[in-house]
């Protein structure tokens, strides 16, 4: 079947099998490998992208379901060389160790801050409760997102 999906403001038209999952469409068909393919069971959240402005786990969404819709991936966060404040926060607060869970966490963090610019620590923990990090123990991830909340315009040069 033919689908047309707008990914990061760019329109793509591709011929796919209906059983193709959105995460594989993004990675294999479009080459957008920033979105990670993790547990494959909607548990780990490494594959979180936005589908029509709502974060979803793309390992459990069919690419066919994205036909005619907008998808936003981690590749869209930085503006040129300027990192999004959530990306800067992960750098500033060492929210990354191996980095595998990071793309999904960044997409959830960006969505959270768009809807709640000053979330309490508990709110952040609840927001990322569907995402697994096996390195950091979450402390620095929470700090990273708080940093982004406190620096909505990013770091001052």
């Amino acid at each position, binding site marked *: 079947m033919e689908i047309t999906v707008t990914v990061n403001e760019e329109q793509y038209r591709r011929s796919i099998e209906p059983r193709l999952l959105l995460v594989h469409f993004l990675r294999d068909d479009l080459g957008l490998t920033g979105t990670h393919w993790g547990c494959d069971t909607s548990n780990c959240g490494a594959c979180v992208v936005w589908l029509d402005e709502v974060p979803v786990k793309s390992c459990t969404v069919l690419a066919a*379901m994205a036909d005619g819709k907008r998808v936003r991936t981690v590749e869209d966060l930085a503006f040129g060389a300027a990192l999004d404040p959530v990306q800067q926060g992960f750098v500033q607060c060492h929210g990354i160790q191996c980095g*595998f869970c990071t793309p999904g966490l960044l997409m959830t963090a960006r969505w959270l801050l768009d809807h709640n610019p000053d979330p309490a620590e508990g709110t952040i923990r609840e927001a990322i*409760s569907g995402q697994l990090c096996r390195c950091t123990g979450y402390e620095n991830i929470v700090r990273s997102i708080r940093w982004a909340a406190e620096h909505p315009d990013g770091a001052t040069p």
Partner: protein
Amino acid sequence: MLHPGERRDNARLTLCLTPLLRVAAAAWTIPFMQVPAQFEYERASSVEHALALLAKYGPESRVIAGGHSLIPMMKLRLARPEALIDVNELAELATIEAAGGELRIGALVRHAELLASEVAGELFPILHDAERVIADPIVRNRGTIGGSLCQADPSEDLSAAFTAVRAIAVIRGEDGERTVPVRDFFAGPYDTVVGPAELLVELRLPIRAGLGSAYTKVGRRAGDWAVAAAGAALALDGPNVTEAGIGLTAVGAPRFVAAEAEDFLRGGAATPDRFEKAGVIAAEHCSPAADQRGPVDYKRHLVATLTTRALHLAQARAEG
């Protein structure tokens, strides 16, 4: 954390499945598969269109909305539909409204939308209690109310919540609409009374003055299925219970109902002693199975405690 390309096994993939399905998955010594088997995909543009597509493709077709139960099952070949009818575009089924003495919840309402609904939380706080502990926020963005009920998973939370408040399911077929009490909706684990050419379109919750409701759950970690959970709805007339509804999750209660405990409470006084006794009765009459979430006696203990707690909370809200 496992990375792409790394060898995985079925046990890993079954993490998202409930205990009963895991046993079924483990029994299948199939090679790891990352994508579902082939199927036809159709996107429905209206309820009538969805029904026509279901009729066209027959009993081997399945309705898909959020897909957060069906797609993992398809990856494991526990489900292998020949056609998927995507109902995600049916905005007519995605509304929540209080009308005609009922709270009407469309089948396509997402968990996150039900949790965000003020009218739902005000009239039936049990729904917000349950939604807060269903999966995780990202899964709740996608999963739907109708999908949860039609999956008929014995560990699913909303089934017990809707059972407690005696919700009515509205099912549409090509010949029209029929209503079924949620208490008669489940035909067994993973089985409902919805026919192959029918669609669950709405849940209707009768609004009743003086009703209080609550849901309490014990899980092992954030987002996990319940070890056990209990939902309670109480209608009070002064100190007396005029109607009681108790739904139990994941403990083998027939159709999620704790009928004997409800009978005990109905017509009696709403007192701590009687709530405790109702919990004991609920625990006696359910049939939990031992699994990695705990042994039978622990689960019965939870049923007694959680039922009593839910009753207290429901009472406080009814009097609130």
